[in-house]
C-alpha cells in the first residue's frame, strides 16, 4: 500500500473511532463469529434466535450479522423439517439456550418487548416466558 493511501486509511480509522459513539476497537473490527460479535458489544442476541445489531454499527458489522443469521436460519429450517415444527420455534428454542449459557456480563440481549438490554454483573439474563 502506498504511503499517502496508508496515511489516509489510518486517518479515516482514527476519525471513525473518535466520531462514533461506540469504541470501534481493533477487536470489534475483527469480530467474525457470533461469540466475537457479542463480545464486541456491537451485536446482541434476540429472543427469536437471531443476532441483532445494537444501535449504530459499521456496515461490515451488519454484513457479518446478516451472514450469521442466514446460517442460523438454514440450520433452523433443517431441524424444523426433521422435527415437524415451525422454523420460528427452533429459533426460539435456540434463544432459550443462548440466553441461559452464552450472554456474558456486558453483552446485549433483547426480549420480546424489543428493547436492547445489557447484562450487568453476574445476575442471570431474564429469559422469555416460553423458556423452561
Amino acid at each position, binding site marked *: 500500500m502506498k504511503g499517502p493511501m496508508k496515511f489516509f486509511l489510518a486517518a479515516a480509522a482514527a476519525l471513525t473511532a473518535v466520531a462514533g459513539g461506540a469504541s470501534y476497537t481493533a477487536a470489534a473490527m475483527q469480530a467474525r463469529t*457470533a461469540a466475537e460479535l457479542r463480545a464486541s458489544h456491537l451485536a446482541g442476541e*434476540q429472543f427469536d434466535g437471531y443476532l441483532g445489531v445494537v444501535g449504530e454499527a459499521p456496515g461490515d458489522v451488519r454484513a457479518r450479522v446478516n451472514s450469521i443469521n442466514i446460517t442460523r436460519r438454514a440450520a433452523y429450517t433443517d431441524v424444523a423439517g*426433521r422435527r415437524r415444527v415451525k422454523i420460528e420455534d427452533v429459533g426460539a*428454542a435456540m434463544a432459550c439456550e443462548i440466553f441461559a449459557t452464552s450472554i456474558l456480563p456486558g453483552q446485549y440481549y433483547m426480549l420480546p418487548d424489543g428493547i436492547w438490554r445489557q447484562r450487568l454483573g453476574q445476575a442471570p439474563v431474564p429469559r422469555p416466558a416460553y423458556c423452561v
Partner: protein
Amino acid sequence: MSDPMIKAPFMSSVAKPLIGLALAATLAGCIELNAPDRPIEINLNIAISQEVVVRLAQDVRELRETNPGAF
C-alpha cells in the same frame, strides 16, 4: 403552423416517462445512505409452548456443536 413536438421527436410520449424513470432510479440510490437501523429478522409472534422447547433442546445443543461460529 409548425408543431414544436414534431421537430423534437426524442421528446415523444415514450421518452419522457423513460427519462423520468432514469432520474428516479438515479435518485433512488441516494435514499439508502441513511437507512434506519432495523433488525433484518425479528419475529414478534412467537407462540411456542414449553413442551416444544423441551423437545428441541437436544437438537439445539447439537446445532451449537456443529456450527460453533454461528451460535
